[in-house]
């Protein structure tokens, strides 16, 4: 069996499953956020009763992160609805925006969008927060009401996005009927060259198979090249399995996985036991390819979908209006460090926005020194508008007052985010080009799409 099949067989209590089988699996964790949480809770109450209790308090994780730093009253209300539910259910893992368990969240627009407006429990973007807060463990099944839930596959678990109705069902029963996906195999060899990042790996893979090339399938990443990839890198890759239509992405377990998960569960006092799944000799794949990391070049997915693969160096004719680094996939500490590596001592020539995924990342960037400056200062000195309000921000457009949102037609943005269908970052006539933080940085300097190796090598 493949990693995904083995994991699902275990979650279903079966010795063996095959691709195509419909099986009931037990969930280890159910995650929801402010956009889909209120509707999920609505389904749960409608179907199980107003007084019903969730199947397991310790396994429901609620992370508001999408529409937080907006004056939109319905969005603020949705955070309050999560708080009320968490209180009523006694949920230990609700990462509230504010510290007062009886308070109400109201964003204060008069304070501007850059200065932090959250309390000490706030966790930031759900997919990045889950591992940081010790909720990802090898061998487990994670369901989340968000398509990029597949990011946790980096930790050798089965993680996939589901809708509110399915999530309402899991909330009440802890189980879900799913179809075992076929597995596509991406064997990774070699090592990334300077100026090339994990984002380039996954943009390359999606370009290879098409943005629907993994529909209903698992994408398995393993091979000797994986060892050189950090957990941040693996998260970037697994995150975008959905951009090829994939049900999940999954990495092999190794010493790095163990170290990360052990340190995070210890730090947060979350469940620390886990049982990874290891590959069988007789895995059956529906597709196999080898990715030679050494051969990859800075890659861009052009408007209007993540499968429009081009090399950055071929796109110098595309003039840009803005640049953006942020999101679950591209707003991690390592992403900002690579962003800063290119920008250090230089100035951007177009509007450039930086949105760290989580408060912990904000803290890292404001305390990590590089010479006599912090990473944060280097970015600000380069002209990047950095916000402390970690969250999804303009990655998915959001309410019109969202930081970095494209509110006019015709704007072109190069972005370290993961999705670029029409209107994704705001106006439906705007365009998004997906790239690594290094490519975003080089492009922000030049005002047009630019290969970062022009800056990295000198």
């Amino acid at each position: 069996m493949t990693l995904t099949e083995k994991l699902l067989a275990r979650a279903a209590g079966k010795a063996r499953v095959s691709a195509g089988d419909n099986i009931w699996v037990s969930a280890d964790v159910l995650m929801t956020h402010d956009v889909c949480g209120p509707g999920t809770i609505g389904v749960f109450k409608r179907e199980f009763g107003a007084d019903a209790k969730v199947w397991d308090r310790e396994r429901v994780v609620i992370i508001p992160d999408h529409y937080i730093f907006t004056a939109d009253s319905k969005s603020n209300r949705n955070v309050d609805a999560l708080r009320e539910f968490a209180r009523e259910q006694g949920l230990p893992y609700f990462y509230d925006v504010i510290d007062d368990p009886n308070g109400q969240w109201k964003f204060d627009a008069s304070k501007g969008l850059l200065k932090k407006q959250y309390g000490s429990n706030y966790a930031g973007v759900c997919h990045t927060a889950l591992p940081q807060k010790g909720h990802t463990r090898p061998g487990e099944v994670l369901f989340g009401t968000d398509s990029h839930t597949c990011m946790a596959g980096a930790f050798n678990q089965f993680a996939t996005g589901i809708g509110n109705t399915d999530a309402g069902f899991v909330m009440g029963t802890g189980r879900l009927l799913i179809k075992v996906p076929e597995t596509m195999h991406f064997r990774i060899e070699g090592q990334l060259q300077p100026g090339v990042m994990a984002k380039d790996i996954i943009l390359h893979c999606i370009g290879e198979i098409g943005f629907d090339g993994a529909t209903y399938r698992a994408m398995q990443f393993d091979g000797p090249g994986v060892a050189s990839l950090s957990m941040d890198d693996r998260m970037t890759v697994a995150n975008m399995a959905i951009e090829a239509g994939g049900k999940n992405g999954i990495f092999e377990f190794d010493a790095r996985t163990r170290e990360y998960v052990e340190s995070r569960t210890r730090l947060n006092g979350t469940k620390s036991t886990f049982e990874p799944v290891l590959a069988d000799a007789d895995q059956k794949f529906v597709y196999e390819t080898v990715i030679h990391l050494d051969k990859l070049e800075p890659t861009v997915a052009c408007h209007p979908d993540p499968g429009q693969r081009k090399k950055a160096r071929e796109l110098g004719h595309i003039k840009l209006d803005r640049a953006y680094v942020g999101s679950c996939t591209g707003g991690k500490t390592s992403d900002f460090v690579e962003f800063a590596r290119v920008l250090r001592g230089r100035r951007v020539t177009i509007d450039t926005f930086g949105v760290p995924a989580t408060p912990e990342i904000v803290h890292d960037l404001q305390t990590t020194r590089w010479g006599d400056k912090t990473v944060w200062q280097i970015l600000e000195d380069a002209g990047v508008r950095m916000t402390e309000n970690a969250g999804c921000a303009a990655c998915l457009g959001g309410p019109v007052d969202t930081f970095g949102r494209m509110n006019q037609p015709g704007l072109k943005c190069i972005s370290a985010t993961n999705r670029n269908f029409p209107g994704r970052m705001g106006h439906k006539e705007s365009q998004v080009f997906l790239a690594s933080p290094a490519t975003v940085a080089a492009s922000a300097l030049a005002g047009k799409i630019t290969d970062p190796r022009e800056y990295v090598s000198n």
Partner: protein
Amino acid sequence: MQSTFSGPVYVVGDNIDTDQIIPAQYLNLVPTIAEEYEKLGSFALCGLPDDTNPVRFVQEGRMDTEYPIVIAGRNFGCGSSREHAPIAMGAAECQCVVAESFARIFFRNCVATGELYPIECGDRLCDVFKTGDLATVDIDANTIRHHATNRTYSLKPLGEVRPVVDAGGIFEYARQTGMMPAKAA
């Protein structure tokens, strides 16, 4: 259960993602709140670019669509897991989408909510039909008929998905089939 749907069709192309079906700015609406459910319907498919789709799916100022049938190309509903997408279309009183293929989560959400029938078709109907053409979908016979030409195209059977949508979603289906206890009145 109704098994035929007739009326004008609304035609879209490939890769219509969930942002085009219901733009992210409207995700502050909660589908289980009745008036917000209706409101979601009024925004269904409003994220489609004006140049490809000059006619709106739901007219300005209206809550429902005139088009009970949507015809699409490949990979309809790709992108996010937001259930708001099939819900917005269902709330606008759209009955079915006939597409060459569907993205996985959208398809599943159609079935889980029972909002509309996601029907696959081996022919590329989005090149045959134009928005406003009259058609009849028959999910017993698995056909769609183009009224103007009187041509009939065959659809892939809905199979195990159909009784779930017929029932109105997975919870109702689970109750009807005894997998879950009936709701106390």
